[in-house]
């Protein structure tokens, strides 16, 4: 009942649910929601059967573009995005990392062309020993997903 009320309270907009509690403020930060002009509700440390303690973000009248959802997938891959219209969940969008991520990550290699010339970054998502790694398309350096630097 309580969960239904949280979602139903939003007329139009987006709910980002099942964010691990320790990642909530990072998601807020990378989506620049601290500067968001729309109505926004942020809850944290809510009980969750899936992730223990979870965070939730509800934003009115806001849809997320693909590169924005990519950012969420990097930080909180199991978060769920619900699109709300007229109080109804019209789309449940589970996040998954794309095979290629453009622009939003900064390469950690100071000698990479992308850190020295006006070149947009591009990373390939690869698996190494069950660990998700991101490989710079240009300098070919790899970084563990948890250590990526978001622009």
């Amino acid at each position, binding site marked *: 009942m309580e969960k239904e009320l949280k979602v139903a309270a939003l007329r139009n907009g987006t709910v980002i649910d099942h964010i691990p509690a320790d990642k909530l403020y990072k998601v807020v930060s990378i989506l620049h929601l601290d500067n968001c002009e729309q109505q926004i509700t942020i809850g944290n440390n809510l009980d969750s059967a899936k992730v223990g303690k979870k965070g939730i973000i509800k934003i009115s009248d806001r849809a997320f573009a693909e590169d924005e959802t990519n950012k969420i997938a990097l930080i909180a891959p199991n978060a769920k995005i619900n699109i709300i219209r007229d109080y109804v969940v019209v789309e449940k969008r589970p996040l998954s990392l794309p095979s290629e991520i453009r622009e939003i990550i900064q390469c950690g*290699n100071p*000698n*990479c*062309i992308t850190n*020295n*010339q006006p070149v947009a970054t591009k990373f390939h998502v690869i698996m190494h020993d069950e660990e998700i790694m991101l490989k710079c398309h240009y*300098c*070919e*350096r*790899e970084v563990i997903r948890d250590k990526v630097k978001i622009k």
Partner: protein
Amino acid sequence: MGVWGQIMSNNSLVSIADYSKEEILAILDSAADFETNPNRKTLDGKVIATLFFEPSTRTRLSFETAVVRLGGSIIGFSDAATSSSSKGETLNDTIHMVSCYADAIVMRHPLEGAARYASEVAPVPIINAGDGANQHPSQTLLDLYSILKTQGTLENLTICLVGDLKYGRTVHSLIMAMSHFHPTFKFIAPDELKMPDEYKVFCRKKNIPFTEVNELNDNFNDADILYMTRVQKERFQDLMEYERVKNVYTLKNSMLENTKSNLRILHPLPRVTEIDPDVDSNEKAYYFRQAQNGLYVRQAIVSKLLKTT
């Protein structure tokens, strides 16, 4: 077109990791053909730009010789200070400008990823002649050609990699390229310059056996190839340690007595102290001929990129 069609799908040579076993072998076949006759006029009328934003002797001279012996012409610069990049021109602009004049661009650049980027913006083929510490594929191909030529095969060889295995791009690329041919590796390096974990993980994934030791001594008596690299002073925080390592990692002629008869010693050059000059006259010393092989391999690369063979 065959495999070459696949190799040259972007019509550039950027990274050895882009190439399959068949694609590598096709380049080596072509190089062998150029070795039998390196003087042809197949590049007659073609202009090749050599843009060396970072200094180089061997690579630039061998690319330029490769082109001249095939009847092509060279434009370019060998020092970034004499190019408009010193005035702040972006690589994008330099590449677009040079593409107006040249049929292909051979480029060395200090920034990693510069060649990949150039290959994406250039309308003409880009040949990576080294991008920072990242890739130097023509060196890897000439290393493979030298191994094939001296051993008669690339399959099932024992290869000792010696020296700076941490920062040395040639050894990293060689591991990736040799992974197609069932090698056994021995990594011989001081603790400061050990092979990075990512390449050991790579070997395990490909079921490539390897061992690690940190003294040169006679640890290469079972080797077919001894690949020496330069131990650079600036890599060491403790200069006392550098002095110790430098002496331990010097190959001397007397150390070759019990090695296999087919052993050949390779080095990407320049060498400093890691190979004593008394090794030069040993028939197992192959590093100068290795440099000569660079000419044929580079003729093969340029010709294939320009589709003149």
